[in-house]
């Protein structure tokens, strides 16, 4: 589905990512772990070819090298992003956030209505400005906004940030639901709390390099790795 090869990323002069190589198979959920500032967000920005950073290396999505595509073409080819910090549009209402980007996908069809069914909390505030919502609600909207583009690969950047435990549970459930629908998921996270509930595999990034890759089971059992890289 997605192959990242020899990816190096730079913010101006400073290199953030070093020789990143990994692969994502269809319909799996992979969690990227790493502490603050290790380059996780940068990895997602590189995949979307957002500028900065500047990238070297190749990124193949559905057997197409997308590393030189502008980010809107990457998004159109079927990658959805839920960015860190949500980045909602202050000028748009909740409903507009969902209608603006709604487009049909290959096999799934998320509509604004379906998003509202999933998150009734925001359905009630349909006509409010997106940024008037509470942090948790904003996060739901950001997820919804990515869903209506009906991506086949969904990139999540710390989607649980600022969410109450119940909502977090709900997001996790949603992700599992999406997985059932055949969506592939790359999820960036700092904490390793809920991994066994969703992830098929785990990747750990430390200071811009991939230092560990394994399936979830192995990771959970590997106390050493956890304490070394995640301070647990």
């Amino acid at each position: 589905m997605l192959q990242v090869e020899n990816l190096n990323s730079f913010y101006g002069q400073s290199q953030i990512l070093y020789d990143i190589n990994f692969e994502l198979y269809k319909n799996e959920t992979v969690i990227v772990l790493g502490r603050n500032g290790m380059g996780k967000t940068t990895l997602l920005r590189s995949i979307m070819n957002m500028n900065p950073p500047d990238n070297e290396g190749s990124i193949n999505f559905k057997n197409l090298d997308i590393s030189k595509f502008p980010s809107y073409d990457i998004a159109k080819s079927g990658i959805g992003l839920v960015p860190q910090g949500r980045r909602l549009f202050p000028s748009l209402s909740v409903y507009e956030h969902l209608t603006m980007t709604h487009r049909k996908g290959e096999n799934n069809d998320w509509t604004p209505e379906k998003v509202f069914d999933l998150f009734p909390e925001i359905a009630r505030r349909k006509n409010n400005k997106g940024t008037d919502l509470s942090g948790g609600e904003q996060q739901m909207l950001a997820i919804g906004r990515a869903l209506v583009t009906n991506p086949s690969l969904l990139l999540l950047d710390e989607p649980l940030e600022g969410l109450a435990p119940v909502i977090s549970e709900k997001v996790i459930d949603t992700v599992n639901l999406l997985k059932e629908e055949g969506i592939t998921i790359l999820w960036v996270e700092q904490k390793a709390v809920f991994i066994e509930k969703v992830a098929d595999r785990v990747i750990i990034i430390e200071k811009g390099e991939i230092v560990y890759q394994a399936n979830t089971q192995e990771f959970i059992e590997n106390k050493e790795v956890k304490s070394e890289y995640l301070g647990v």
Partner: protein
Amino acid sequence: MPDNEDYILQTINLSKSFGGIKAVNNVSFKVKPKENLGVIGPNGAGKTTMFNLITGYIPIDSGEIIFENNNIEKLPARKRSLTGISRTFQTSQLFLDLTIKENLFLAANKNQNTYNIFIPWNKDKEKIEKSIEIAKEIGLYDNFNVKAKELPHGKRRLLGIGQALISDSKLLMLDEPAAGLPAQERNTISKLIKKITKELTLIIIDHDMDIIFDLADRVLVMNQGEILAIGDPEEIQNNEEVQRIYVGGE
């Protein structure tokens, strides 16, 4: 409890919200002279905002800031800087089109004689000397006449710290000085900071626990705009709440 006189900086119920977000909420703490205070907390906890409030970079909503027994919360940023507070920025803030020399000189000069147009700044020997000295200290003397934009990221960070150091401050506030740097440069910075903080007070934000626990006498943990805990490093390291919120893990 020691008397107020014993503190160099004190905040009382400091608050700031952006729209609906309470970025800093009723924050009160005190810092003793020559103390090193580390500040940690999850992303968006309000650390940088707190720095901005103390340095006057953004206006406060309510509360008090007392520096050396004077209320400074009403002063504009540049006046606060003149009282002896200096800082670095999370994303490095330099005069990119100016040389290292000029960058350091401006910091050393601190608005003295700015309006005397008759004397070339190059003639201010004392401050030039000082700039040279600091440049050597941070290892940038070789690049003394190079424009800051030509420096790599790590050296830019060093320059930012150099600017904070040179400006003769009593209170130095560093916002993630080591972020985005490889281990070796982190060490340099850490050492440099250690060396200079013997004479002055330091408040430092960083996500790198090694640096924080190495440098700090006390650690303040913020979460969702509030102080979650404050105490000496061991105490904080063993605080379960902090572990859960910040460090992560089961």
